[in-house]
């Protein structure tokens, strides 16, 4: 049982305001069912895990990577906006340090020189600039999240 995975799933539910999440991964012999309290009571998600449906700890092989099945690719950005993709693989930070203010927020106007975020790669903090003028419509990744090359970070409505 991978607790890390569960933590990530719960975080995902929180961010996506999910009430319920069910996953069955036959290859991993894994079934996960998570349900959160309905709106009113705020915290403590109820977690129910049904592990190892398969006879043995089945071959520890895994599921689809990014760029796998066609269903994985959601339709593309909403009309009038463009996805701002990460120019490198690394860790995404919204601020220069834990104490600093975020570089940008939803609704903020940005110009070509505006720093949008930092991507840390090999201990180097790379400031990522907007390189266009526009307005931040959505921030697609969480502070501290690992990101791939080419992964969309922001939705920007171009000026």
């Amino acid at each position, binding site marked *: 049982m991978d607790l890390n995975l569960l933590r990530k799933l719960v975080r995902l539910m929180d961010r996506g305001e999910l009430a319920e999440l069910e996953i069955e991964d036959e290859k991993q012999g894994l079934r996960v069912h998570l349900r959160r309290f309905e709106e009113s009571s705020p915290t403590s998600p109820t977690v129910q895990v049904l592990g190892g449906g398969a006879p043995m700890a089945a071959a520890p092989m895994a599921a689809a990577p990014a760029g796998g099945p066609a269903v994985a690719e959601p339709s593309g950005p909403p009309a009038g906006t463009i996805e701002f993709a990460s120019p490198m693989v690394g860790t995404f930070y919204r601020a220069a340090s834990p104490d600093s203010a975020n570089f940008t927020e939803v609704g903020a106007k940005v110009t070509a020189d505006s720093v949008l975020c930092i991507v840390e790669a*090999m201990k180097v903090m790379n400031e990522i600039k907007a390189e266009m003028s526009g307005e931040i419509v959505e921030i697609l990744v969480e502070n501290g999240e690992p990101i791939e090359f080419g992964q969309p970070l922001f939705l920007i409505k171009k000026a």
Partner: protein
Amino acid sequence: MFRRVLIANRGEIAQRILRACKELDIETVVVYSEGDKDALYLRHANEAICIGPASSARSYLDVPAIISAAEIADVEAIVPGYGFLAENAHFAEVCRSCNIKFVGPAPETIAAVGHKARARAMAIRAGVPVVPGSDGAVETEVEALRWAKSIGYPVMIKAASGGGGRGMRIARNDPSLVNGFHAARSEAEACFGDSTVYIEKFVENPRHVEVQILGDQHGNIIHLGERDCSVQRRHQKLVEESPSPSVDPVLREAMGKAAVAIAKESNYYNAGTVEFLLDADKNFYFIEVNARIQVEHTVTEMVTGVDLIQAQLKIASGEPLELKQEDVEMRGHAIEVRINAEDPERDFQPSPGKIGLFAAPGGPGIRWDSHAYGGYSVPPHYDSMIGKLLAHRKDRESARRTMLRALDEFVVEGIKTTIPLHSRILAHSDFRAGIHDTGFVERYFAAARPVIRGGS
């Protein structure tokens, strides 16, 4: 053993490493460029991380991108395969500084064996024969004649700054040496702005024979016999086999001991290869050490039954070798051909594109290592090799026949490949007799080459 590793390569060797990891119950993270994003093997990894655009320089050769991926994926080790960063001492050094195990030799070893003069000196210290030569600049006719006398004809006069055959002369007697000496100097001056030349024994019609070694981090080193890679085109190997038809048990032991001696001299651990030239009189001369797994490691796997990629992983994780030298047994004969997306009829120009109908051979004695399948698009950005076909049978002639029938049943539509060329090579009487040398392909299959030339 590692719990989780990153595979810093692509194509068939990424696939090969994935297989070894799964069999050892190691979680895999594979990095890929945008040029490889639709490759099927990415699905078999626990995680796949895009590290850059198709260009190798900005993906598979990009040290920060790979290290960064290793950090966010939280792996214990990086497996480099061959090519790209596999023999990059700097990369191995960076891995060490980031506290990530590099599945290869120590950076110091990579640097030492990668330096031609240092490697040659190491071989001499280990008592291993090297191609005899002046070991430095030859300034005058008199010096040249003295060296030629001590080495024995034929000799080769080579430009110190040379390459690609320019500034080189073969001499078979004193007058041709004197002429060649001056000609090579002028040419070297003209071509490289440096007239320095040196003299080396010219090994005629050599065979390329290399010895597979395995060393652990506890000082144990063994060899796993030889591979014969004499079927080459412009120094690109096309066909490999083990054992070599030119090597008998006595010679095998001598070459094996030589390889192990050099490995010890360089504190080698990991899988590795020591390359030799073998002349018609069965004298062997050290050429270089390849401090990585090689494309053709597979033929050694077939005849010895040792999984070399698994062995690399075990070594890197600190385990001692499972085998002693006396446990190594070679059984049968294995031949490998490289299936490249190239057109042998048009000077081997690359033939990337989408594969249509595809049916790889199978059945007894056949192994097929590949990431390709019907519908796969061979990207134009990388090496043209799309797979390695192996035949392993009880003796060389059976393996040759099995390979011929396998090539015959191989169907690949949509791209050109080296399959028909391999059928001709394996059917050739010299190959069948096992008497071919490194000039074999140029000698007999050159006609297939320059039929049509591209615009450049």
